């Protein structure tokens, strides 16, 4: 198929459309407004529904409702709006409902700014809402990946009956790159034949809920969820770049991951042996590869567009086996490859 030149935000919307998304619910916020703009045209044309809700809370609960009917549905927002969606995400995880939620991370806390940031790593990866649950988290580093991972997000959401998050930022959302789209999927508009709500005529009623009050019921439910999260560990994805002969492994995701690549290429010409692991799934986290690189005696440097969040997962992965440094780019500053040169050189010398 011919390449098309589109924004990251549009790639996400188009990926959803081609993956069979039939309902989109949203509330406007910069820097992700291209997603609802695209969907406002695409959903009706695809025979689906587009709703600009009265709030992010409503949009997220509409997602829950569509998911309960077995429909491929999506909502998107940016950081402040994501905080408002957390209640519904927790309920979806508790009720085992599939849905795709996009966060184009902007600066925070609070309203922050409209520029790029990775300040929502904890919120995305560690739960965000209440309760002992997990969402799968996919972090695109290119516009092609923004498309492909949205496609994948729907597959994973229905395979695991679980919310799947796409965590981008203002860079991934606003930049344009050529992409090659996939063939649109022909999906059953109503999936989940064994669990979806469709009217209970001539069969037992189904209940989708997150409340379990009878003795032992919640423990049993939580055990089932934990077993599911364990099964999902095989979905781990990452990009490995110039790690073979590297003495320093940089760990960076999303936009920062790709920006760091430019720094590595430049430093390589000057003889500095740095490589990169770019986690593509943030949950499940690529712990195994990091641990095995640590066992080979390599040092680590985690670089994030925040003041230290994913670095905790890196350190849990390498279990104290290797030296692990951190460099944080302050949210509010636009990152460039130059910013990471000295931190990488320092980490190599440490």
């Amino acid at each position: 198929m011919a390449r098309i030149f589109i924004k990251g935000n549009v790639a996400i919307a188009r990926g959803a459309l081609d993956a069979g998304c039939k309902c989109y619910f949203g509330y406007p916020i910069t820097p992700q407004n291209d997603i609802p703009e695209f969907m406002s045209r695409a959903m009706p044309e695809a025979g689906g529904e587009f709703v600009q809700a009265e709030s992010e809370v409503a949009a997220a609960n509409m997602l829950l409702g569509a998911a309960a009917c077995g429909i491929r549905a999506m909502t998107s927002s940016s950081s402040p709006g994501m905080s408002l969606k957390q209640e519904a995400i927790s309920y979806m995880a508790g009720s085992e409902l599939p849905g795709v939620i996009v966060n184009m991370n902007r600066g925070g806390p609070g309203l922050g700014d409209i520029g790029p940031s990775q300040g929502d790593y904890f919120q995305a990866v560690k739960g965000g809402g209440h309760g002992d649950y997990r969402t799968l988290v996919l972090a695109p580093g290119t516009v092609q990946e923004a498309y492909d991972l949205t496609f994948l997000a729907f597959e994973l959401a229905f395979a695991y009956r679980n919310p799947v998050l796409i965590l981008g930022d203002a860079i991934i959302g606003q930049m344009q790159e050529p992409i090659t789209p996939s063939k649109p999927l022909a999906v059953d508009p109503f999936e989940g034949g064994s669990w979806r709500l469709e009217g209970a005529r001539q069969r037992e009623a189904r209940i989708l809920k997150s409340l379990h009050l009878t003795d032992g019921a919640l423990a049993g439910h939580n055990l089932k969820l934990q077993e599911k999260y364990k099964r999902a560990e095989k979905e781990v994805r990452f990009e490995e770049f110039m790690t073979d002969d590297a003495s320093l492994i940089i760990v960076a995701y999303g936009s920062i991951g790709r920006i760091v690549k430019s720094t590595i290429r430049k430093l390589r010409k000057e003889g500095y042996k740095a490589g990169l692991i770019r986690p593509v799934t943030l949950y499940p986290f690529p712990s195994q590869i990091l641990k095995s690189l640590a066992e080979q005696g390599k040092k680590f440097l985690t670089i994030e567009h925040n003041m230290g969040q994913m670095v905790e997962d890196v350190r849990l992965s390498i279990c104290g086996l290797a030296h692990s440094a951190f460099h944080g780019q302050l949210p509010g500053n636009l990152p460039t490859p130059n910013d990471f040169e000295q931190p990488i050189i320092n980490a190599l010398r440490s």
Partner: protein
Amino acid sequence: MSIYNDAIIAGFGGQGVMLIGNLLAYAAMESGLNVTYIPVYGPEMRGGTANCTVVISNEDIGSPIIKNPLSLIALNRPSLDKFQPMVQDGGVVIVNSSLVDMELADTDRLRIVGVPANEIADSIGNTRMANMVALGAYTRATGIVGLEAVQKSLEHVISAHYSHLIPKNAEALAAGAQTVN
């Protein structure tokens, strides 16, 4: 062989900075190259300069954001003031000499190409095509994409409603290219 170039394109809001950034990116894609385009937004949006960054390569592109570009198109003086010091030594700078005093250009350190973009666009029929003249000069000065590829890509960035303006814009691109020796 490795092909790589990056450019910051800057000017007043309304000079068509984003349009020629997009056009250059399309031409690169149509030439089979990889390309990233990112508009820089933020405080610059309100007054001051508008700018975008285009990175072109035949290899995988890392950063779409560049601090020290290999080239610059400066359509007005604030753009030259702001970005000229960032350009790498020996980099190509297209300066719109219709609006910028050429004495401000750092000819010792950079490869400066002065183009009277507004006057040339005027002579073709409309001052608003000054951006095309500057992009034409850029394609010739850097050789990163061919003039024809840029001309062919006009249909991607000019909407069907204005498609009758494509020949004139193609002419403006060619006129810009002709100013470069």
